[in-house]
């Protein structure tokens, strides 16, 4: 009972923060709204017994990635006036219309999937030990190594791009 009530509360918070992300005029307010959204999603992951993913969500998304975003926003110190969110402009109307059609399509597509019941969980589901077993003993060892290579390439790429002279 409490679990689903908390899920709905945090879902509502995530949606409000998500709306705030796309409607705020200043990028820093958007970024802080996005942090709130990420924390709410982390709470939702806990309700879905994904404890390890919830911790990684807070550490990597709300921590590392958003710090990078806020760092860049403050580093650039943009002074030019921003038009903000303009739902009544042609761009706004076309954008909202296209996104609304997409949302209807997603919900229609998912309609047949939602009626299957949730499975009962084995002991330790979602803990780091069980996730680690799937990650390292299953078929995901090669993708894991590929991701580590991707992160190295991303880091080198970021340094090369942002450096003044190569």
């Amino acid at each position, binding site marked *: 009972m409490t679990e689903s009530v908390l899920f709905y509360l945090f879902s509502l918070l*995530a*949606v409000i923060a998500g709306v705030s992300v796309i409607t*705020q005029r200043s990028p820093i307010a*958007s970024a802080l709204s996005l942090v709130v959204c990420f924390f709410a999603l982390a709470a939702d992951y806990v309700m879905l017994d994904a404890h390890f993913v919830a911790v990684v969500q807070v550490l990597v998304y709300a921590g590392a990635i958003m710090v990078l975003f806020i760092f860049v926003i403050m580093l650039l110190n943009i002074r*030019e006036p921003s038009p903000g969110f303009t739902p009544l402009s042609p761009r706004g109307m076309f954008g909202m219309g296209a996104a609304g059609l997409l*949302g209807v399509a997603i*919900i229609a597509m998912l309609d047949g999937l*939602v009626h*299957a019941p*949730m499975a009962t969980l084995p002991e330790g589901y979602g803990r780091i030990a069980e996730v680690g077993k799937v990650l390292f003993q299953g078929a995901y060892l090669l993708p894991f190594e590929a991701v580590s290579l991707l992160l190295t390439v991303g880091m080198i790429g970021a340094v090369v791009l942002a450096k003044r002279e190569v």
Partner: protein
Amino acid sequence: METVGLAPVLALSGVLFTLGVVGVLTRKNALIVFMSVELMLNAVNLAFVGFSRQNAALDGQVFAVFVMAVAAAEAAVGLALVILLFRNRVTVQLDDLDRMGG
């Protein structure tokens, strides 16, 4: 303890993804467009975790971790591009970046 069903999870995922699409299509600030992309990635992660919970399999959670790692790499490279753009053109408004005539 009663757990939440799959329907609200997928509904939240769809709503957040749609919000991200609205942000990408309507905003002009490159940084906010970027944050909207992150919002869409999170919506997909939520769907992964929801299906993972439904099937009592951990593969979806492993995929969510992969998505986070790719998002981290993407954020680093993308923000480096924004810095480069700002240094060369002194703007992050996407409408002003029309040199390629697109």
